[in-house]
């Protein structure tokens, strides 16, 4: 092994940022904290985006790996041990200085610290703890910290880190246990779910502590999240959102992130490299569905089914649902209940709240809706104001679909040119049925 003694900060930051960029979450939301006047930093409930990178993703946190050395050999990961890349590590001091100096220039909202596994999960977790301890207790940093819990690390250590961080996440990596066995042979589903459960239980206890003593230390106040890779394995959208739904219900997660599979390694177990790039549209549809689960009172089983297991790429999941349930429309804006308003395409939860409040004080018409932020070009097929539709339209699936597609979001060229009729059910999954057998043989 070639060991370089002195690597500059600039080189280290480049390497460890490059290695961290495939991590999805960069949100700084979920907790609100005032400064106490003795140090530096605050948190805003809504989170703050500080910049946007060339791929259009928000930069809110200093997203870095503590080290890109790793004892594991996950097939999809840049940092797998069998890859020949330059390895380096930060020291806790370097992480602190970098965070503080970036923060005071208002470059960032806080720190997102993830890591490869150096020596052992415990050893790595201890290093992370050391960095966070220094940042919180010595530098008095009160900004946002998102940290990864390393599966397999000592529970005591994970708990201690949780008292220093705002958000913790354990990567689910892949949607099913079978895929995990195949692509991440050193990780197991059980190993991943254990820390997730631990954090959940500890947060529950912490709620009671806080009820008793208002100033008790807070454990992971912004909740926990997870992420999984989409498109490296043959799961359907239905399986994926069912997994997400049960994570929200059984593990009380704040967010589930989806990351379109990016080809970084050549490996027999991975899907073939194509020219199409990562399945971004599919990822987008999953996020839309995820919002429907979290904010719009939808259930996974309403959006997809065994017979119809993948999202329509042409239409967003809410439009798709509405078109299949035209018997529930049109909805009268001045009377319909809140939950039904939420189901109207083009109507978000904020405008739904505004409508419910505003109609107590006066009758609403289409111009009022427009001012409130309702997307009328989508909503107009599904609503009436005082019994009238905006324009005379037919309440018919084909008719509405055609019109929605004309004014819809910008879809990639290939998708737009396909034409809706040929592709009422399109799936983005590029696998044959024998996937597991084929790949299984290579282990």
């Amino acid at each position, binding site marked *: 092994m070639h060991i370089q003694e002195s690597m500059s*900060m*600039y080189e280290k*930051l*480049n390497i460890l*940022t*490059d290695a*961290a*960029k*495939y991590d999805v979450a960069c949100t700084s939301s979920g907790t609100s904290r*005032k*400064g106490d*006047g*003795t*140090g*530096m*930093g*605050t948190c*805003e409930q*809504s989170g*703050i*985006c*500080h*910049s*946007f*990178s*060339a*791929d*259009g*993703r*928000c*930069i*809110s946190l*200093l*997203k870095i790996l503590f080290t890109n050395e790793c004892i594991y050999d996950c097939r999809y990961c840049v940092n797998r041990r069998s890859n020949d890349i330059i390895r380096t590590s930060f020291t806790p001091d370097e992480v602190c200085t*970098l965070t503080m*100096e*970036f923060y*005071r*220039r*208002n*470059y960032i*909202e806080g720190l997102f610290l993830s890591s490869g596994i150096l020596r052992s999960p415990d050893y790595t977790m201890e290093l992370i703890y050391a960095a966070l301890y220094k940042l919180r207790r010595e530098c008095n940093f009160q900004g946002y910290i998102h940290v990864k819990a390393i599966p397999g690390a000592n529970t005591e250590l994970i708990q201690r880190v949780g008292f220093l961080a705002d958000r913790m996440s354990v990567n689910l990596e892949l949607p099913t246990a079978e895929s995990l066995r195949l692509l991440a042979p050193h990780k197991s589903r059980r190993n991943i779910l254990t820390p997730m459960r631990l954090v959940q239980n500890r947060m529950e206890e912490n709620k009671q502590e806080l009820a008793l003593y208002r100033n008790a230390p807070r454990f992971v106040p912004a909740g926990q999240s997870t992420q999984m890779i989409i498109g490296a394995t043959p799961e359907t959208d239905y399986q994926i959102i069912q997994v997400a739904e049960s994570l929200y219900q059984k593990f009380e997660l704040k967010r589930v992130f989806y990351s*379109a599979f*990016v*080809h970084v390694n050549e490996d027999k177990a991975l899907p073939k490299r194509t020219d199409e*790039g*990562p399945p*971004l549209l599919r990822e987008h549809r999953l996020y839309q569905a995820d919002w429907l689960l979290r904010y719009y009172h939808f259930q996974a089983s309403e959006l997809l089914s065994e017979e119809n297991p993948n999202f329509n790429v042409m239409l967003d999941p809410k439009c798709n649902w509405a078109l299949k349930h035209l018997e529930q429309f049109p909805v009268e804006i001045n009377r319909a209940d809140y939950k039904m308003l939420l189901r109207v395409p083009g109507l978000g939860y904020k405008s739904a709240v*505004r409508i419910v*409040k*505003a109609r*107590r*004080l*006066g*009758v*609403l*018409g289409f111009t*009022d809706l427009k*001012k*409130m932020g309702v997307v009328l070009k989508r909503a107009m097929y599904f609503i009436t104001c005082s019994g009238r539709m905006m324009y005379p339209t037919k309440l018919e699936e084909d008719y509405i679909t055609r019109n929605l597609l004309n004014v819809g979001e910008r879809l990639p060229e290939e998708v737009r040119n396909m034409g809706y009729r040929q592709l009422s059910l399109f799936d983005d999954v590029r696998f044959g049925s024998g996937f597991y057998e084929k790949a299984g043989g290579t282990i």
Partner: protein
Amino acid sequence: MKTVYICNDTITGIFSAVYDAWRDRQREETCKIAFKNTLEQELFCEYRQVEETEHKAQAVENLIKKHLGRRAYWDLYHAVLSQDEEKGDAVLGTMLAAREIPDSTKIMEHLSHPKVAMAFRLGRNVEGEAHSYKGFLRFRELASGVLYSEITPKNQVLTCLAPHFADRLPLENWMIYDKTHQMFVVHEKAKKWVLVWNEDIDLSAASRVSDKEMEYARLWKSFVRTIAIESRTNPKCQLNHLPLHFRGDMLEMG
């Protein structure tokens, strides 16, 4: 005949105009609030110069807080900071409309009223811009150790930003310069922030940055470049989230 109240485009000015119109028992259609430097003369109007005092502004603030509630006060306060010429009318119209509904604290929910809808829209727009600047603003460390920032906002967002940064960086000396409205916020270590305008401030010190500054600027630029995933490059999406008019003052976009 319409009465036009003429005032300066400041909180004190607009609130004083509202005070006078309220005192004269004007209705929405009989009056208008216009600004000294952007006034366009109209026929059949009576023009009145508003005498601007802190006392009047304070009285209007108390009136709003007492009858429309604190939440509505902040909505209207933000509307007054807007770049829109008709903001004075929107605020006065909203206050007058509040007298017509049973519970005036619910006035900001009355979005089918055009003036309320307008005040709501203006307020939201200012809050939106202020929120963006909380993230997009960049400080640079000057040779004196002071953190200095320049912004070019459309609305007068400085008073929205100052409490945020005062809470966040209490132990730093910092200063934000609003190039559009030529105003400053100055914060001295462990003291309260102050708003400064109509003063000649020598900005020559602002170009002399500290030794370390170049190094951190280089690290940050490289971080922003590296964090993007090449196969996902999407300038349109980036443009949607980070419009060009913010980029001029941002280190990493230069």
